[in-house]
């Protein structure tokens, strides 16, 4: 067992960012080599992490240090920890993050304008993303969660497209609103929960694992299941769950809270679109699976139909919007909304298949959406125009590019043989089985959700037909000599993603074997604890 692997992952980019502060701004090349070096180092650490990981071992690579411990007299002790670890939920996402961050760094290669600021922000973002996937202390998680916003805001706002100012502030305000909702619950939770392992005085802890165990809740606290407090028809735990749910659903994003996403994606520079879609959205799903559902399982069961329905609405509404989009990036952004709807549906089912599927969908969508945005970036780099109707018959001039587009589109529409198919089939299975095993979701939800596949095929095939096939033609003042095929650097970015989407579609077992124990344990926890709390222990 290698100690401190996770800390190494988190702090390497931070140290590099600090070092970059002292490099003169003129040395543009040194910044990108530094960022690449960090990403490569992280890949090596990740490999060690994967080798050391034991799928049946639960939580691993744990590092636990007291961080803020303040004794407050009669009220008790305020205790937050530096507590990180990986399990079946976080390891695939950490692996995905390291991989995608490497690709995004390569894809940033041409950024020379204000390179110093760009790479410092990218490195900080890198640390915050990985940190939020491994943090097991609520305060620590919240720190990383919030710390992602500011770098992303500036990365979109300074290096983005024409409407970047509007899009970046919208992104920031929406996500901050979400995190404030989470903050309200976080404060209430740490006041309600005590640390069972420290004898004597009352220790208010931020430990997420302690929070998930209802026996650690101080009696008569606000989130005590016996609390009779009600606002409207809901009790305190149900309200708290809803706040957490909406907080993370903004990030996910779920219809109708998704409107920041298309704007942010369209205006963000390509590498940031990749990070947004592949990693930042996942933190929404991760937060639901790590925090909202396990801590308030009773409320999660109570609202499972609602979550499932919202998931299905996201699938259908996102798909329809994608179909109506005129801008290639906007189309991909809406397809992300639809795909994240599947995550909601899978989690709402609380069946091992559904939860595994949701986790696998996050992993697979990370790969596929990164590829989609890179693909959209290729054409944008050449012409600065993403309007679908301005292109026709590109396949004749860009055969390699067309091949990559085909792979990414087919993977995203859930064609068998690609990772998206495995995830979505698992989610359908799980959602369908839910009616007969735990009775949470109606069968019709799974059936309506399958329409997402049909819509997906429709908008992708239609786009293929419009942009890539037929006679070669360009509109909107694009010159034919601007249309050139992939460069080596673009191959380097796209090929690994295409291979990964294919490999994890044909042979999902390595990832599923990591996810599966977590999914089993997750469902058992939510169902048993949820039911016992519902009946007031």
């Amino acid at each position, binding site marked *: 067992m290698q100690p401190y692997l996770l800390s190494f992952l988190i702090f390497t980019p931070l140290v590099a960012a600090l070092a970059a502060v002292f490099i003169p701004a003129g040395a543009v090349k040194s910044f990108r080599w530094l960022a690449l070096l960090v990403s490569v180092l992280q890949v090596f650490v990740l490999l060690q992490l994967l080798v050391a990981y034991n799928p049946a071992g639960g939580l691993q690579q744990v590092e636990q240090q007291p961080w803020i411990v303040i*004794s*407050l*007299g009669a009220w008790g002790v305020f205790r937050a920890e530096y507590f990180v670890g990986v399990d079946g939920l976080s390891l695939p996402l950490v692996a995905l993050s390291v991989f995608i961050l490497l690709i995004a760094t390569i894809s940033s290669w041409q950024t020379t304008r204000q390179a110093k600021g760009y790479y410092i922000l990218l490195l900080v973002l890198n640390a915050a993303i990985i940190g939020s996937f491994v943090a097991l202390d609520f305060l620590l998680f919240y720190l990383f969660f*919030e710390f992602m916003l500011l770098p992303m805001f*500036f990365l979109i*706002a300074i290096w983005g497209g024409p409407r970047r*100012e509007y899009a970046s*502030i919208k992104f920031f305000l929406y996500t901050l609103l979400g995190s404030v909702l989470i903050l309200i619950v976080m404060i*209430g939770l*740490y006041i309600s929960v005590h640390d069972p392992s420290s004898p004597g005085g009352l220790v208010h802890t931020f430990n997420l694992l302690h929070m998930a165990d209802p026996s650690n809740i101080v009696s008569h606290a606000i989130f005590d299941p016996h609390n009779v407090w009600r606002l409207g028809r809901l009790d305190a735990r149900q309200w708290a769950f809803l706040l957490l749910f909406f907080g993370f659903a903004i990030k996910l994003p779920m219809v109708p809270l998704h409107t920041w996403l298309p704007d942010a994606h369209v205006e963000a520079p390509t590498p940031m679109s990749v990070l947004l879609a592949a990693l930042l959205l996942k933190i929404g799903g991760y937060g639901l699976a790590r925090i909202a559902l396990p801590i308030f399982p009773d409320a999660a069961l109570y609202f499972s139909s609602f979550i499932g329905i919202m998931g299905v609405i996201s699938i259908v509404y996102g798909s329809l919007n994608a179909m109506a989009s005129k801008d290639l990036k906007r189309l991909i952004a809406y397809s992300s909304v639809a795909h994240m709807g599947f995550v909601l549906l899978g989690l709402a089912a609380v069946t091992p298949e559904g939860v595994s599927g949701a986790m696998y969908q996050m992993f697979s969508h990370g790969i596929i959406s990164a590829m989609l945005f890179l693909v959209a970036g290729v054409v944008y780099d050449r012409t600065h125009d993403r309007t679908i109707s301005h292109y026709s018959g590109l396949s004749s001039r860009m055969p390699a590019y067309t091949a990559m587009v085909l792979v990414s589109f087919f993977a995203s529409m859930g064609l068998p043989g690609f990772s998206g198919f495995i995830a979505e089939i698992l989610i359908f299975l799980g959602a369908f089985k839910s009616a007969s095993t735990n009775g949470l979701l109606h069968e019709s939800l799974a059936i309506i959700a399958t329409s997402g596949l049909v819509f997906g095929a429709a908008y992708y095939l239609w786009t293929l037909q419009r942009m890539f096939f037929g006679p070669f033609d360009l509109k909107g003042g694009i010159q034919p000599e601007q249309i050139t095929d992939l460069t080596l650097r673009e191959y380097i970015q796209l090929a690994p993603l295409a291979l990964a989407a294919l490999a994890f579609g044909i042979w999902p077992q390595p990832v599923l074997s990591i996810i599966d124990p977590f999914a089993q344990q997750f469902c058992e926890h939510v169902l048993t604890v949820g039911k016992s709390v519902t009946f007031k222990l």
Partner: protein
Amino acid sequence: MESGLSETIALVRNSLHAFVPELILSLGILLVLLAGLLNRRRGRLSLMVFGVMLLSFVSLPYHAEPFAHTLFGGMVRSDNFSAYLRALIDIGGVLTLIMAWRDKRADERLSEYYSLLLSIILGAHLLVMSQNLLMTFLSLEIMSLCSYVLAGFSFTRQGAEGSLKYFLFGAVASAVMLYGLSLLYGFTGTLDFSSETFSAALQQQQTPLVFAAGLMVLAGFLYKLAAAPVHPWAPDVYEGAPMPVVAFFSVVPKLAAVGALLKFVLVLNAYGHSAFDWQGVLAVVAIITLTVGNFSALWQKNPKRLMAYSSIAQSGFLLVGVVAFLPQGMQFMLFYATVYVIMNFLVFIYLQSFENIGLETIASYQGLGRQRVWPMVFLLVGMVALTGLPPTAGFTGKLFIFSALWEAYALSGKPVLLWLLVMGLLNTVVSLFYYLRIPYFAFIKNGESTTSTNNLAFENLFGLLLVLLLLVLFFSPGLLMGWINKITFVIR
């Protein structure tokens, strides 16, 4: 008070030992005025004032154990709550002095300027110590009268307007407060509001008139705190006054007022036995203050006015700590107040340096992020801290005060506290929008690209120090909470 002259003298003499900081300040005021007549060299004068503030700061009673000395027959009391606030006030004074030293325009009437600053600090000291209605009013008036003059110290039209508005509003607020105080005196027969007689008399007569009198007195404190609905003076005064004075106003009188308010309202509330819901009243005031401050700030084009509304909103956050009516609420409020001093001065010190190079509107900050990278980055940290985002102590402070509020809500179950919690945190989102306006113009709006200059060396060193403090207090708030923890709050 039928005591003989000799007894009175003995009383005064026995009180003097615990009154050293205030004596130093009083002597300092006179010395600075005299020195101004003889010698107008700014360096020497500034050094002298610095010395006075430093002496006052180090002579404060720092005891690890809780203590309380009632001085001058119940006029004022020195305890560790007031000592902490006084220390914070002195720090605010020193920071203001550093800013004023960089303000070349203040040369003309420097000794008056400094002596007025010192007088306000003295008034603030007395206010947080006072436990007598009359003393409270007098110390508040020391602060007010000097503030009116100081508000107009830029000697411009705008300054005069701000100063006059401040004076007119302030005079009314003082009159109302005095009337309230006189009513309370009539009801209780004593001026010592910490005494047993006072609270016993209040408890016996819970009439609406007592409620009205209490409200009137609160209005006086809230006026100094620039809390809604008695806040409208703040933007005009801030806009017209010199930048160091603005920074000073946004910190020192507020701290003094919130300290005195806390003591007073606990008595009014009769430790929970009052028939009137003072907690609810303050919670409503806090909600209005937060909302009005934040929403009005959204439309501002002038950095000073923006900060005026920001400081109104921040008063709301200070009130959140008071509203909890819990010991840890008081401690968390002190933590927040400390962080507030740091982050506010961090912002003002750069606003001043930018004003010195002629940037008067937010729009004129365009492109400054490239031109002056470090000042803008530090200013950004200050703004982020005021918004309350990690990893700055601004977040820790908000986390703390809202924790106290949650706890208070869990204990009392009053819906208004829940509303305050939700409104307060949602207001954070609103505040982000305007706090980011200056960084937004500086970094994102592209001005003409000029070569970067970083000739704000002094400000940068100073700013870096404050930035580091904000970060350190985020990562280990225990450093400060360790001290604050030892402060127990006893009213008598």
